[in-house]
């Protein structure tokens, strides 16, 4: 995966989160909504930082981390439409965010 592909993959994840956040069912659960919204803000900041980061895309750890992110995005796609699985959605997004943090920490 390249840096540009990662930016796009995070963009796609943000789109899925936005659909969830715009759902009145979740809006009417303020605590859960706030939790997902806080994660959306963090992931959005990470995407902005990623656009302006110097990444060694051929680095082995970058490839490992992006592999994990791709895996987590696949898991997210399976549960994102089911608001009954909101805790699972939150955990998966947290995992994507944590892997992204690792990538950004290694970037200059």
């Amino acid at each position, binding site marked *: 995966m*390249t*840096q*540009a592909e990662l*930016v*796009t993959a*995070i*963009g796609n994840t*943000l*789109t899925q989160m*936005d659909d969830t*956040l*715009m759902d*009145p069912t979740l*809006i*009417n659960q303020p605590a859960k*909504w706030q939790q997902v*919204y806080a994660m*959306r*803000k963090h992931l*959005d900041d990470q*995407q*902005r930082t990623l*656009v*302006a*980061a*110097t990444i060694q895309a051929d680095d082995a750890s970058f490839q490992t981390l992006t592999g994990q992110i791709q895996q987590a995005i696949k898991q997210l796609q399976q549960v994102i439409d089911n608001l009954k699985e909101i805790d699972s959605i939150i955990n998966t997004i947290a995992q994507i965010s944590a892997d992204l943090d690792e990538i950004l920490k290694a970037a*200059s």
Partner: protein
Amino acid sequence: MTIPRRLHIHRKTFLSLLVLLFLMGCVPDQDYTPVITQFQQSADTLSHAFQRLLTNANLVEYDHYIDSQAFDHASLSPSEIDSRAVITPAELKLRSDAIRALAQYTSALATLAQGKEEAQIVADATTASTSFSTLATDAQTAAAGHHLIPTTADYAGPISSAASAAGIILGLIERHRTHEEIRQSIEKNDPALSALFDMLGTESQAIYERQKSTQRAQGVLLFTDYNREITQATPDKDYLLQLSDRIKQFRRNQALVAQADPTAAIAAFKKSHDALVAVILAPKDAKSRTLAALVTTVKSFAAEVEPLADGVQSTSSKKN
């Protein structure tokens, strides 16, 4: 004027005409003119749309930050807003000028292939040559100076290679060298421009992704405000109407942003450039075939660039 001097001028004009006829490969000018005109218009439109997209890159980040802070009832300060910038004016200019130089260079090749008057061919070649020369200097300055996008430093290499390659080709045209010399030079040097096309395409994808993310974030805030307001004991009808108007505008903008992805247009620009080079390099018996391919690729280029220009222009002038 002396007779030998007049003969010299006639011989030079005759040779130039011969060069043009060779380059055209006996394909009539009327076959070239519409496709070349369409290509030049599309390249010009892309150049303007791309510049607008880059100008918009910081504005969408500022607006997004202000909206988020207001939604969270958090403080706002000019310095914090400014810190959200993703591109400096010099970085913006460098990328915008790179697209323009590529458009001018390809237009110069188009004028050559079309068999325009010699003065026009030389004038177009000189314009492109000057643009690339300035661009190469600006790239060095930008790489050494303050920049927000790390890849700015990486531009110096592809721009330098592209400027050298284009400079060699355009120099031969300016100096009225033979058809074979120009043809061989294009064949040898033109591939050096690919890296610059690719770099612009990849980078613009990332900038576009940010535009999409920030635009969608506005939707989240609008829908949340609306759905929260209707749960109040006495919803504020005026506020709900304001929100519903903004939601309608948001949805219209969403459709426009969807067509503001520059990546496909830049890829189509490169394909048109490659098809034009193929026409110039093709032997006489393949001119008609390569011209037909050029017509197809230029049509695709126009089809990509027109909605892009509409999308970019509309999204940069409208706000929810």
